[in-house]
């Protein structure tokens, strides 16, 4: 048997680097198309931050200022954070929970797909949609809210917020591994909405009750929003390095939790 099976062994079957790159590309492309065509996703992830911004930033308070910053400028940073968080949490958690719970992930795992490609696609998708939301907010602010920012600042703001998609993508993966396929959106909102409020993404930080302001300091969205506000000169002048470090620590914790779920899945049956 040994010589015969040796002939049946896998010599000569090797995937080239360019083939691997192509898999990552296609996985990301189809993840993007899949979600783009999913109206629930695009509607909630893109329209909610934009609607809030139009209402509170353009219709109601567009002539006001917060400190030295105009409200439309300030709110690009905070609703930008809100949008990034939504795009990332929904972009990772709901798809993962459904794929896991209803068997599709098993089909993918049984195939020769490199497992990391699956997760990378979800993270890339989250970053792309984050970039779309922030860009649209900028366009709205500039065209209708009198927002004037140097080009370099806009690029930095966009870059900061898109990088800020990573901690929330990691959080989404963790949620996706522990939420059921149908309950995932509810579970996401259970985190998403309170975190957004308490971090000062809807009501600016200084107008929050004192207790909530203290809680905010422990919340990841607060730190991302402060980084974004820092770019437009409206932050609370805390150390940017500290914000990044806290977000990094949060990312690692979430990845750790997701990893526990990933390993638990290897030995479990669904359906």
């Amino acid at each position, binding site marked *: 048997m040994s010589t015969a099976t040796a002939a049946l062994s*896998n010599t000569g079957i090797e995937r080239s680097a360019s083939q691997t790159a*192509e*898999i990552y590309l296609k996985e990301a492309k189809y993840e993007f198309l899949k979600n783009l065509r999913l109206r629930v996703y695009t509607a909630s992830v893109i329209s909610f931050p934009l609607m809030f911004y139009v209402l509170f930033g353009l219709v109601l308070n567009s002539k006001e200022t917060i400190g030295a910053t105009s409200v439309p400028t300030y709110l690009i940073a905070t609703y930008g954070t809100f949008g990034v968080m939504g795009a990332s949490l929904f972009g990772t958690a709901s798809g993962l929970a459904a794929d896991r719970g209803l068997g599709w992930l098993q089909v993918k795992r*049984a195939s020769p797909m490199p497992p990391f490609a699956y997760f990378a696609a979800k993270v890339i998708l989250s970053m792309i949609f984050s970039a779309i939301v922030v860009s649209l907010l900028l366009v709205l602010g500039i065209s209708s809210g009198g927002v004037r920012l140097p080009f370099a600042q806009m690029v930095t703001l966009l870059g900061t917020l898109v990088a800020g998609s990573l901690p929330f993508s990691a959080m989404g993966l963790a949620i996706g591994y522990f939420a059921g396929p149908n309950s995932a959106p509810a579970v996401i909102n259970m985190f998403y909405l309170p975190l957004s409020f308490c971090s000062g993404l809807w009501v600016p930080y200084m107008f929050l009750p004192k207790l909530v302001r203290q809680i905010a300091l422990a919340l990841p969205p607060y730190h991302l929003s402060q980084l974004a506000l820092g770019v437009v000169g409206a932050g609370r002048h805390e150390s940017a390095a500290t914000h990044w470090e806290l977000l990094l620590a949060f990312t690692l914790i979430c990845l750790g939790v997701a990893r526990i779920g990933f390993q638990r899945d290897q*030995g479990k049956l669904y359906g």
Partner: protein
Amino acid sequence: MIATTEYSQSTLRAYAGTVVASLEAVSKNYEKVRALRNVNFSVRAGEVVALLGPNGAGKTTAVKLLLGLIQPNSGKARVFSGDPTNPQNRLRTGAMLQVGRVPETLRVREHIDLFSSYYTNPLPLEDVLAAAGLEKLRDRKFGDLSGGQRQRTLFALAICGNPDLLFLDEPTVGLDVEARRTLWEEIRRLVDCGKTVLLTTHYLEEADALADRIAVINQGEIIAEGAPAEIKAQTSGKRIRCITSLGLANILNIPGVTDVRQDREAVEIQAKEAEPVVRTLLARDASLSALEITSAGLEEAFLALTQDNGQKVDRQN
């Protein structure tokens, strides 16, 4: 229609008979449920093996073990004499699994394009579409497909990588008679190209139509294994239904009767062979009426099989 590479065709032909997938003394439990107990089973290059059994028998568990999706509690699952989770083994296997939801907003050809990219030597898209009968549905979104069309798309994903070894878990569930026969044709064609196929089914007819070898599995154990003709010989039980004044105990003691139960006004009798039992019945009860004889379903066949083996079937498990 399916083109194989020179490599796999020549190699598989030359080494036909080599074990390419096996379960060696495998047991698998899910919490308190025993899905498989001490199963020994193998698939050789170039053959079609059917794992035949009722729902919950452990068929899917066996496939998932061979795909490396789950790990056995004891024993070993091997594919191409290595670990099923080995990425290189996966490059040579394709799988069709029962799945609750597939991303619905992607088109048929997009799903195939993505899965093809996972393999080093995939089939051309047109060949895959033709093999699965999906030419006209290529631009259809998965969510807009009927049950049978979805099943065919999953089949396409299993074969698109031109794998040497195919796992098909209940491939024809939800297909109408015509679609089922078309899929059978396609599976036969794959085998003619030198592919190895392990399929699970609860249709004796399907196993009979496709397999070189059938392994009958029930309650986590393989209770019979052999060529379709051998299995059929063992499972050709008959079901006799009639209205009679005879008591159940009186019927059960007729030689050849394996089971009897009251069904509304009639009794239903399981027997290995119908003729001697009917002869006795008629002799004992001249007023017997509404006599019907049908081939036993698979469930009854399993009963007959397990009783042949001298084992009592625990129906509660």
